[in-house]
């Protein structure tokens, strides 16, 4: 399968020079997300996580690369496949995992679950369960930045499935019209639940979906964290300079089903295996790092460190008490 790394019509982000420290940091965060999600899948299998649980495995490079292009104060909003985004913004694995198990130590004190988590401190605005709704909301984050005259940028993630929602196009128009400092990031993992992008979208180049409104767009190899980072930096610079919105289409892939209860019969096992063995973002980062002289013991140390973080999160998520029954009635309205 060819992953489009070339940028059509709008020029390509500069070929990134490989910086060992940066790549190692990215590798570490991607691995944390991978191991966290594997553990979440395991806890789901044990009945400790309920409801819907959408894993990010395979797509880690997208969120890690984009986060590296941001500055403090920039904001992030996404859909329900959100665990990776939260870890990338620096939210604690413990709090995320405890929310998955519906415990009081979770980011929403157990009242939001997998799809609804937030952190004002880390400028993570959710975590939204209605497909496409976060795109309009993301415009609002950017609107507030522009209203206040600061130079913050907001990242609005959504899937290629959501990209067909009417409010996404409404948002493209509003963002371009108002020159909002926002980056639309389409995480094109090829399948909106069980429907392939070819069966869902007449557009063959989603990076150009904003073209009617003059929104510059770029296709990016979303399995290459450095390519993502480079594209992100270009888009962020564009927005921060007051040039209005930017659209990035990340060509990526999810290894797991849409949610835990998806048997994934709409694609072949070979297709998944090919992506895993030939295009995996973590494996390829590791190979590059090996080429840069990173030694086995350094990888082993990272493995151990992450294993400990994830195990600690899983333990915390099982030992943190359920929310007090009185929590049922709190947080409906603010006093005022």
């Amino acid at each position, binding site marked *: 399968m060819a992953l489009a790394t070339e940028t059509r019509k709008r020029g390509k982000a500069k070929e990134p020079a490989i910086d060992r420290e940066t790549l190692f940091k990215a590798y570490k965060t991607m691995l944390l997300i991978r191991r966290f999600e594997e553990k979440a899948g395991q806890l789901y299998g*044990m009945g400790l996580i309920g409801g819907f649980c959408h894993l990010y495995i395979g797509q880690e490079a997208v969120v890690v690369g984009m986060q590296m292009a941001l500055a403090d104060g920039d904001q992030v909003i996404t859909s329900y496949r959100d665990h990776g985004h939260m870890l990338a913004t620096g939210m604690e694995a413990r709090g995320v995992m405890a929310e998955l198990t519906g415990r009081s130590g979770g980011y929403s004190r157990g009242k939001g679950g997998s799809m609804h988590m937030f952190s004002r401190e880390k400028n993570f605005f959710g975590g939204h369960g209605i497909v496409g709704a976060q795109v309009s909301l993301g415009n609002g984050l950017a609107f507030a930045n522009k209203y206040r005259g600061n130079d913050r940028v907001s990242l609005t993630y959504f899937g290629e499935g959501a990209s067909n929602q009417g409010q996404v196009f409404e948002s493209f128009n509003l963002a371009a019209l108002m020159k909002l400092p926002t980056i639309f990031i389409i995480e094109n993992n090829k399948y909106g639940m069980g429907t392939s992008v070819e069966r869902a979208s007449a557009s063959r180049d989603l990076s150009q979906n904003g073209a009617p409104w003059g929104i510059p767009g770029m296709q990016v190899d979303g399995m290459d964290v450095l390519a993502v980072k480079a594209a992100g930096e270009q888009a962020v610079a564009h927005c921060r300079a007051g040039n209005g919105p930017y659209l990035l289409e990340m060509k990526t892939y999810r290894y797991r089903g849409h949610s835990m209860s998806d048997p994934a019969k709409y694609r072949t096992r070979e297709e998944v295996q090919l992506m*895993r063995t030939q295009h995996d973002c973590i494996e390829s980062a590791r190979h590059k790092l090996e080429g840069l002289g990173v030694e086995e013991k350094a990888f082993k140390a990272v493995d151990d460190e992450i294993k400990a973080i994830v195990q600690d999160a899983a333990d915390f998520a099982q030992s943190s008490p359920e929310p007090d029954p009185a929590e049922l009635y709190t947080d409906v309205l603010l006093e005022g």
Partner: protein
Amino acid sequence: MATQILMPALSPTMTEGKLAKWLKAVGDDVRAGDVIAEIETDKATMEVEAVDEGKLARILIEEGTEGVAVNTPIAVLSVNGEDVSAAPAPASEAPALPKVAAEGSDVNAIAEQGAKGQRAPALDVAAAPEKDWGPAASITVREALRDAMALEMRRDADVFLLGEEVAQYQGAYKISQGLLEEFGARRVIDTPITEHGFAGMAVGAALNGLKPIVEFMTFNFAMQAIDQIINSAAKTLYMSGGQMGCPIVFRGPNGAAARVAAQHSQCYASWYAHVPGLKVVAPWSAADAKGLLRAAIRDPNPVIVLENEILYGQHFDCPTDEDFVLPIGKAKVERSGRHVTIVAFSIMVGVAMKAADALAEQGIEAEVINLRSLRPLDTATVVASVQKTNRLVTVEEGWPFAGIGAEVAMQIMEHAFDWLDAPPVRVHGVDVPLPYAANLEKLALPQPEWVVDAVKKIV
């Protein structure tokens, strides 16, 4: 080291399944992510993926076995290469069950509250009389709404207005007259006709700390945006465990105007009043409009302000005090009486007042309550009145089924059943889409005579 592989739950409702097929044999190397087995549930065939790496040491459940309970050990994985084939299966590690809620909380009391629905408000039947705001002047509802926005925009730089035609056109119904001139295009913003998009954008701005006023040209068009109003504005505070407040006002004309037919004439009062996380107000007079809109803009929660187009041009006395504001959640007794309580909101308060005049001529003294606020509902004021009059008539322009009248009547059942001398009666719009023809439209919307007839049924 040996690790157990457990029968996984693959959907929110799965409790057991058939272990249909093993795709790995004893002795095979397993990598994380490899499919090791297939499981059939009543819904689908699912693949089981390995989480850990190692060698498949033992298979504990043979393929073809039906009814394997979730969390049953199905295989043993040797993780660091040692031979565990002969070792007994490690003791099943039962998943930790959720801990019982923190000690000291009274679970039964909470459950009882739930069974009662709302926490029944402590009814303060001797509620304080409304504050006297001093001198008043006659203004239109339109001017009252405009003044409310202007005053709050002067008071708080985070407040801004957006919507279709609110700026250069001065408002489709001229509510925002003069605001663009005073506050400029940064704070008075014309949007394209894109309700879903601009409502969602405003909610996002509110989550990010601003205080938007969203004008819908009518609430009929807000149906395009109702997902953002309910799923994003009303629920996010709760879903975020109290982190994400959403201080926003959604306002515009609601209900029937005149001869604009079914798609432009719906009352959404019961729709929004149904939703926890929202506040809903429905002003009648100019004082209501000014006082409630100012309170709505200051409120840290999403507030729906249901206005009425026909009322926009009507004059009422309104306090001139610079600080005039009304509390959300308090009804007003517009007219005192002892024979029957008539409860109404928005334009129907006027209908109820006309009916009360007609009833007075016949010797019936009706007490008219203007609800002002639909959520929270001022049940205490209605209860206090019914305890005096022993009879209740509700009046609303919207449809009867699951309407505001139904809710008010139910509140009286719960809180003042023993004081009732007759069953409550509802007066409401006819249960059809609103027709265009003048004669049919008149037949569909509550008239003062309907209220008089309803009262005379029970007095």
